[in-house]
């Protein structure tokens, strides 16, 4: 019974249902992109809600937006871009089969990801101290429209919160990749998990690339 399937043993890089390893890799990439498209629509709804309410309640949204710390936002953007750079170098290291470089770049990415979350936590803590968290004790200086100001901060916490949740999940994925890399599971023939995790990490970066100007910057020139 020496049939075709037995003649060629099944590997991680080439599962039985695929003709070639390249076909399997393309299928994985495509599948991840389809998932990322659903994520685009998920965040897209929040971006849309923000755009509509900023349009309707413009002066208050501009005031609330200007109360955020643009410099901290910019620094955090830089931290996240650096983490994307180390992530892409991790993917490259796995492509060329450098196990040690892969582990080092994954650790660096993880550190930068945690640093981003730390800065985010500092910012949120500041919001609690300034009474900028929607609720009974909410107060934003300089406006009588407290309800509309709370709407801005509700969207702020929903958008940055969901983004931070994605970062936490991303850090979990990185930790798993790190353990697998340590065990030497990835080779140039099979590094799909590293590649797919890279797509996810860069996607979360892109979401922040839009969150940063929309929440922190676009009404900054109007002054407080």
């Amino acid at each position, binding site marked *: 019974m020496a049939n075709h399937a037995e003649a060629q043993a099944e590997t991680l*890089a080439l599962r039985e249902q695929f003709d070639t*390893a*390249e076909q399997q*890799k*393309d299928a994985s*990439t*495509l599948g991840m*992109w*389809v998932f*990322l*498209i659903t994520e*685009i*629509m998920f965040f*897209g*709804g929040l*971006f*849309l809600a923000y*755009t*509509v309410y900023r*349009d*309707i309640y413009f002066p208050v949204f501009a005031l609330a937006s200007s109360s955020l710390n*643009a*410099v901290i*936002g*910019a620094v955090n*953007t*830089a931290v996240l*871009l*650096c983490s*994307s*750079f180390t*992530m*892409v*170098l991790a993917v*490259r290291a796995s*492509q*060329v089969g450098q196990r040690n470089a892969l582990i080092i770049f994954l650790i660096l990415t993880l550190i930068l990801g945690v640093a981003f979350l730390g800065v985010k936590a500092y910012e949120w803590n500041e919001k609690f101290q300034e009474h900028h968290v929607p609720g009974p004790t909410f107060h934003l200086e300089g406006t009588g429209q407290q309800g509309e100001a709370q709407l801005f901060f509700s969207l702020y916490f929903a958008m940055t919160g969901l983004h931070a949740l994605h970062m936490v999940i991303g850090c979990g994925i990185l930790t798993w990749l790190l353990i697998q890399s340590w065990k030497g599971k990835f080779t*140039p*023939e099979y590094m799909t998990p590293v590649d797919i995790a*890279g*797509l996810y990490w*860069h*996607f979360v*970066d*892109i979401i922040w*690339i*839009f969150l*940063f*100007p*929309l929440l*922190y*910057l*676009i*009404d*900054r*020139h*109007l002054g407080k």
Partner: protein
Amino acid sequence: MSEHVDSVRTYAAVWLILLALTAITTAVAFVDLGAFSVVVALAIAVVKMLLVALFFMHVRHSTQLTKLVVVGGLLWLSILLTFTLADVWTRGLIGTPGR
């Protein structure tokens, strides 16, 4: 595997451009450009998105099918944004019968 491996130099160049664009968009935000502030901020964000997607996410080396799916996703997003904003921004332009 026959996939494309980009050089570290390419990635480093993209990374430095991304950092420079972040500095520029932050600095420009404090300059009064009127309504153009939003346009400039979003234009820079789109350029950054393209750099990350094309280089870091390897879209430029991806299969035609993957590229089609990516563009398709952006198309669906634009439908969501365009149709909703077309409604919101044109309310009150014409009278509502019976009101």
